[in-house]
């Protein structure tokens, strides 16, 4: 009799543990980059914020998951996601065939273009162009044989332009807005041009661990949901002066 009761209790506890484990909050490792305003940066209070960071937080809420951030540089993002070091990356990745081959990519959550900034008179290819390593703009410059001034992040480019170290840069649309609004740039008299080249424009998506298709589906549903219920637009308003589309 006592043995039977013990067995019943064991089964009950096992089921309870399994149930709790099943219902427990999932922990996700999320890759983020720093120093990339307005998408991902440390604000004056020392907290990580930005459009992508806040979107990531809302997605985690929607997934009922606890997200732990892993700081990466842009040139490490694709490798880290592909290797499964992070479950997904809260970094806007322009969708390219190469990235699609290595990662799972969510449905596009906006579309981006690129902007050329340069001191007056400096044309593409004439001066070293400051780019972030691993970015689509760096690849574009490399493909055209432009002399590059590579940096780890966008704020470093802003600093280089402010000090005169760099004469020109090629930036994604959102970072370009941040650069334009940077008070240090007003004295530089930089000229901006939207580069109408398909290689520098297109869908922006989040990279997901290629071995976790279930997470991809959940993230896609979560993106739809935060777009439908207005959370996406509220974040948009906080960080970018127009609607991302």
């Amino acid at each position, binding site marked *: 009799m006592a043995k039977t009761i013990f067995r019943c209790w064991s089964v009950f506890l096992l089921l309870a543990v399994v149930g709790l484990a099943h219902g427990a909050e999932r922990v996700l490792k999320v890759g983020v980059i720093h120093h990339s305003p307005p998408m991902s940066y440390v604000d004056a209070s020392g907290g990580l914020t930005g459009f992508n960071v806040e979107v990531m937080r809302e997605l985690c809420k929607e997934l009922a998951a606890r997200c732990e951030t892993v700081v990466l540089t842009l040139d490490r993002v694709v490798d880290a996601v592909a290797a499964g070091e992070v479950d997904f990356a809260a970094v806007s990745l322009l969708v390219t065939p190469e990235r699609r081959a290595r990662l799972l990519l969510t449905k596009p959550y906006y*579309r981006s*273009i690129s*902007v050329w900034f340069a001191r007056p008179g400096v044309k593409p290819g004439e001066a070293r162009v400051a780019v972030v390593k691993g970015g689509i703009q760096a690849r574009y410059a490399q493909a055209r044989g432009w002399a590059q001034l590579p940096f780890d992040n966008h704020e470093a480019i802003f600093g280089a332009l402010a000090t005169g170290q760099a004469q020109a840069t090629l930036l994604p*649309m959102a970072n*370009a*807005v941040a650069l*334009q*609004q940077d008070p240090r740039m*007003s004295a530089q008299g930089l000229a*901006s*041009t*939207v580069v*109408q080249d398909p290689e520098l*424009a*297109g869908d922006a998506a989040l990279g997901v661990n290629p071995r976790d298709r279930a997470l991809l589906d959940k993230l896609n549903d979560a993106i*739809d949901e935060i*777009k*439908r219920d207005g959370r996406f*637009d509220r974040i948009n308003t906080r960080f970018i*002066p*127009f*609607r*991302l*589309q």
Partner: protein
Amino acid sequence: MTTLAKPVDVRRTWRAGRVLLALTSVFAAIAVCGVVWLAVDLYAVGVAAGRLQGETVPWTIERQRLGRNLEQLRLEGQRVLTASSPAGRQDALFLVHVLSAQPGMADDPRTASLAAEVERFLQQVEAPATPADMQVWEALSSRLRLMADDLSVEGGKRMSRELGRMSGEMAQASYKLLFNLALMAGFMAAFLLVVRRYLIRPLQRIRRVLSALDPRGPVPAFPPGPMAEIRAVEDAIVRFHATLLENDEVRRRLERLATTDGLTGLFNRHHFMALAADEMARAARYGRPITVGIADLDHFKQVNDTLGHAAGDHVLKTFAMLLGDTLRQTDRVCRYGGEEFAFVFPETTPDEAQLLGERLRTRLLESPPVLPDGRHLAVTFSLGLADASGCGLEESLARADLGLYEAKRAGRNRTVVTRRPDGL
């Protein structure tokens, strides 16, 4: 000789199991068709809802975003024309370029051309803007606002259209559901009517016939029905009734053989004794008078010897018929043996029985037996009576037999009552 053939019912019959199977199959087929018919609409509703959720709502949100960007473009354009500093103008112009180049703006030809027009205008206007520039700008600004309005309502219109279509499909599905329910209800009603008419009612009729089944009654008649099982039971009932009737007739014949005398038709001695015992017991229970008697035809042997046994039998039958005509219904009489007859007269004293005996004797004298050749036979009988109340049957009959003996001895053709020793 002509044989009249029994009319054969040529109406076709059906096995109830097969009929039920056929009805169920038809019902299932109709139900499946109805469900499929309904499922088509439900599927369409599902598709419409999915389209609404997956396409129309996101499209509507994108339209609103585009409208918002047009409004932003207008504000930035206003800032370009009214900026107090070159840097401010530069910032605003930068956003104008970015907004105009945004893929979302370029998707719609209307917004693409308007944004390009705005961008060109703002690019070529030099600060400060002239009144003519501001006039052009006002027109552009108005067009931007109207376009933003149009985009905002386009999403609503599309959603409204989709919802209307979906409502129509849902309404259609509802009608189909109602139709299906009505169809099923109708089929169920028809099914119940069939069961009631061809199974339940015949069963009720069978129950009524069985509860009132009497072999002496009329042959049960059933209206011809289509159900084979019911027909089989009804036919069996008719056969059962015929068997009951036959058995009843056999039983009656056997009973008659067992209780009556074959020549005279009167009760035989065995049955008489049983009836007499019952009457004696009843009289004793209620303290009523009862009388028994034994009669013997006088000189009957002589009739047999001179005229033959056929004449003797004729005399016996004639005397038996006279007894049947003269005695009361309640009186019991039997052929006791040979030319002897025994009687029980319930509710009758010996004196009253003597009157009956005298009436019988007189009638025999008045109506003597007539032989087939026309000769009249003068036949008489002697009768002994005894009071049987409060006595046993055998004892009473023995006393009646003494009376008979006394009547014979006294010259025959008379009735003698043997009184009991106690004077009764």
